[in-house]
């Protein structure tokens, strides 16, 4: 089976005024379907840049990225938006929920954007919220939810359109250890149940320990790749 995500020699340089900052200096790796992959590295190692590129939010200067077989460099802006809507789910460190929408509204949004009727969207969103254990909190706004609950809503939103890949940017970075651990467990469960590929950027050791594979990123280059012993347990 071909890998669901292929990153081939990706380079990206940011220009800030006269200073050029090389964020990625040639990164290549694949992710298999159903794999739980973490990209581990210190801040400034290019993790977030890599995630943005994989999610089609930004374009690399060099190299190619294939998501579910399509070269995202060759997609138009609209097709890229559609790819993000249907094949990719994002989970962010700061949750990035829309503050004026309820938990349900936030989870419904990607379904509504995919041109599904409001009723169907609502059903799908409710089911997803039940899955992440928030069935009693669906009408609460983000400000009325705890950090852990907000991240669960964000995970539900990322998964509601049943994407191929879930990209998470430090999902536990803004949570305490206990709640963070719960979120890690939830993501693991979802990964097992739905067989979606998870690519998680983290410097949380618990998260890394739970992964099938850890890619160590430093100064825009892959320093090391470690297969987890637990993978075939």
């Amino acid at each position, binding site marked *: 089976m071909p890998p669901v995500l292929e990153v081939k020699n990706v380079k990206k340089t940011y220009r800030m005024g006269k200073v050029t900052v090389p964020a990625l200096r040639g990164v290549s790796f694949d992710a298999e379907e159903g794999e739980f992959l973490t990209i581990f590295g210190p801040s400034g190692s290019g993790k977030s840049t890599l995630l943005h590129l994989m999610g089609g939010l930004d374009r690399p200067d060099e190299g190619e990225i294939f998501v579910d077989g399509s070269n995202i460099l060759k997609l138009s802006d609209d097709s890229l938006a559609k790819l993000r809507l249907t094949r990719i789910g994002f989970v962010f460190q700061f949750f990035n929920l*829309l503050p004026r929408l309820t938990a349900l509204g936030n989870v419904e949004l990607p379904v509504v954007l995919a041109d599904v009727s409001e009723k169907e969207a609502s059903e799908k969103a409710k089911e997803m919220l039940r899955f992440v254990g928030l069935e009693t909190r669906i009408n609460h706004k983000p400000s009325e939810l705890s950090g852990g609950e907000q991240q669960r809503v964000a995970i539900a939103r990322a998964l509601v359109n049943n994407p191929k890949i879930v990209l998470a940017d430090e999902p536990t970075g803004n949570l305490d250890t206990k709640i963070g651990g719960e979120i890690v467990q939830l993501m693991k469960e979802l990964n097992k149940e739905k067989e979606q590929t998870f690519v998680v950027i983290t410097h949380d050791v618990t998260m890394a320990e739970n992964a099938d594979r850890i890619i160590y990123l430093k100064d825009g280059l892959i320093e090391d790749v470690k297969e987890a012993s637990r993978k075939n347990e």
Partner: protein
Amino acid sequence: MMKTRNMVGMAWENLKKRKLRTSLTTLGVIIGITTIIGLASLGEGLRHDVNQRLQQGFELDVLIVIPGSFASGLRGFGFHQGDVANITTIQNVTLVTPMITLPTADVTKVTNNEKLGAFTVGAINFTEMQGMLPQRFRLLSGGHFPNATEKYSMVLGNKAATLSNAVIAGVGDNVTLSMRVTINYPNYTYTYTYQKNYTITGILAEGGTSGLTNFDYWAFIPLQTAEQISGIGENFQIILAKITDPKVYDDVSNAIESKFPQYSITVFVPSSFVRQVDNILNLITIFLLAVASISLLVAGVGIMNIMTVSVMERTREIGILKAIGARSRTVLSMFLTETILIGLMGGIIGILSGYGLSYVLAYGLSGLMQFQQQNPNPQGSETQGITITPIFSPEWTIIALLFAILVCVIFGLYPARKAAKLDPVQALRYE
């Protein structure tokens, strides 16, 4: 693409979340549309009222030919039967009738010597006049127009038979017509007083409105009788020409003018006059609307300002929307839908309050007119106070609503495009 219903629902939610801001922005549109609709419906009402009065005051298919021109001070010769015959030959002219006016004449009642309210005495062919002005030459019941044998008969205008609102003369009463007549001979002039008793055979129905052909204060005697008065003779001051259609007035009036030496006559064309007045009123309305439209443009700038601020504030939200798969066009539509909703709300409320405003203005104007009329014209002329009824015009309503939406779209486009063009990575980093 998102379903329109969802889009509108979402835009509505966004507007509702910022109630104060939304209502203030909408208020700008409301004020603009209120002014436009208020002035438009008032203008239409005024135009309708003035037009109606003019049409009541003037028969649009009757041209009035008078000797002399404004350049020569309207002092000229009189027309003769030959001139009447000449005009009759013109194409599209169906009826021509002359009139002699006797402005110095007095009409007094024989029994008590009371002077009647008649200002002007005219000598006319009654049969032709009925054909010329069928609306105006209607008798009150009990009277008749004099026949050929009733030489010394008189028909009074409605108000001419009254004095201070009291009827002082009626059908069958005898009145004395007296006037000074001057005869010009080559070397000298001779003046004498004409005095003759006439019998009233009919009273005209009320004309009502002002106008050139309002005969309420006139008295009429048969044309032939006047022609036989020494010193008066066949000397017509007015010729009336009826045309087939008010639209051909231009051709006919040119044709009449060509029958006479240049600048020696004046053809008064009521329909061109009415049209001129209509054009002027139209121009005034358009001018007022143009001024009112400025307020809507100001509202548009307000919308642009608020939406630009809103886009800045919602940068992160836009980033999130794009990250989860919203297309640029979807983001654009979201913001445009918000401005369109503002335009729609402002438009509808503005239209309603605009009609309200027009009634308030109409009421105020009518009050002002009545106040001015407390000093009645000593001549007792027949100008009624103008009571404007604003006219609800579906055209203006639709135009105003579309204009409101158009302004909102135009001014909302810049901020919406700004939102759509945001780079998702940058937008997500925005604090």
